């Protein structure tokens, strides 16, 4: 335990007193409860609906990808993350895809989210996997375009846990209704 132990001897040579110093690791979760908000902070909003859900996440930004991935994992999803449109298409594969939902950042260099979605819907399948767009844009036209292309939902950035949960739940429920 990376500690220290020492003994103070009395004149007779036997131990008079001993000191023992032990360093413990405080559980990391303490840092979670240290926020000022006072609300219950480490309640996972995971749901049996999301548990084991296979998600493919495509975002070229390292920070966004790390954050979104963590949020999805917090919900219980199993996440594969790629950093480009091309990698996304390769990951989906030719025929059957292991992924139930693809979450796509719209603005990616080279091959953007729109293009990826168009190709998925045209060359892979018209309804599977489910596609959810991620965008910082609040523009109605952007959302309309997503819908026209065949995307099933939109998540606004910066991403919040509640919002991902709500949108994914909506998308999954709608998909189940169609089938």
């Amino acid at each position, binding site marked *: 335990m990376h500690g220290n132990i020492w*003994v103070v001897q009395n004149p007779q040579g*036997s*131990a*008079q*007193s*001993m*000191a*023992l*110093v*032990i*360093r*413990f*690791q*405080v*559980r*990391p*979760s*303490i*840092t*979670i409860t*240290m*926020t*000022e*908000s006072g609300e219950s*902070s*480490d309640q996972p909003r995971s749901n049996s609906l999301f548990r084991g859900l296979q998600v493919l996440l495509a975002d070229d*930004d*390292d*920070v*966004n990808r*790390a*954050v*979104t991935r*963590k*949020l999805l*994992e*917090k919900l219980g999803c199993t996440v594969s993350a790629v950093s480009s449109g091309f990698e996304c298409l390769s990951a989906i594969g030719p025929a059957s895809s292991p992924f139930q939902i693809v979450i796509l950042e719209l*603005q990616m260099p080279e091959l953007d989210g729109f293009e990826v979605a168009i190709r998925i819907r045209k060359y892979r399948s018209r309804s599977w996997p489910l596609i959810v767009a991620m965008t*910082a844009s609040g523009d109605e036209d952007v959302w309309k375009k997503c819908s026209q292309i065949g995307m099933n939902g939109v998540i606004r*950035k*910066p*991403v*919040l*846990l509640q919002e991902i949960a709500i949108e994914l739940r909506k998308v999954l429920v709608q998909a189940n209704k169609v089938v």
Partner: protein
Amino acid sequence: MDVVSQLQRQFIDYSASLHREGFVDDQFTQLQKLQDENSPDFVVEVASLFFEDCEKLINNMARALEQQQGVDFKQVDASVHQLKGSSSSIGAMRVKNVCINFRSFCEAQNREGCLRCLQQVTHEYSLLKSKLQTLFRMQPSMMAVDCVLLSLVGLGNRSVV
């Protein structure tokens, strides 16, 4: 355990001051809440990614703005847009706000304005980096703490196992 609560208090207070002074916003709070046993260093890791991104993007912007032949404002804007996105995700509010102004100057193709914003964004990034590094230093000390001092008086000749 007074030492523990003192350090915890220090961490809370410093974290709160960062929020109060606008260095970080609710997105950062969300990140802190996402940290758990599975990823105990999540916040530090994401912050490191962010600082790497910042440096790379700021260098891109500086290079593009230096071009004597003519500034490619689209290129500058692309970098600013990226920085705005990642600063927004991590909750780096001040950096994000400078990026918002920066984009307006890019759109207006105003080189002077852009250079001023570049200076500002560099300043805010450095400031945030040092503040977060201070905050993160407070965490390990919490985790390593708990010095337990036991004084056993008068053990006589008994050996300690």
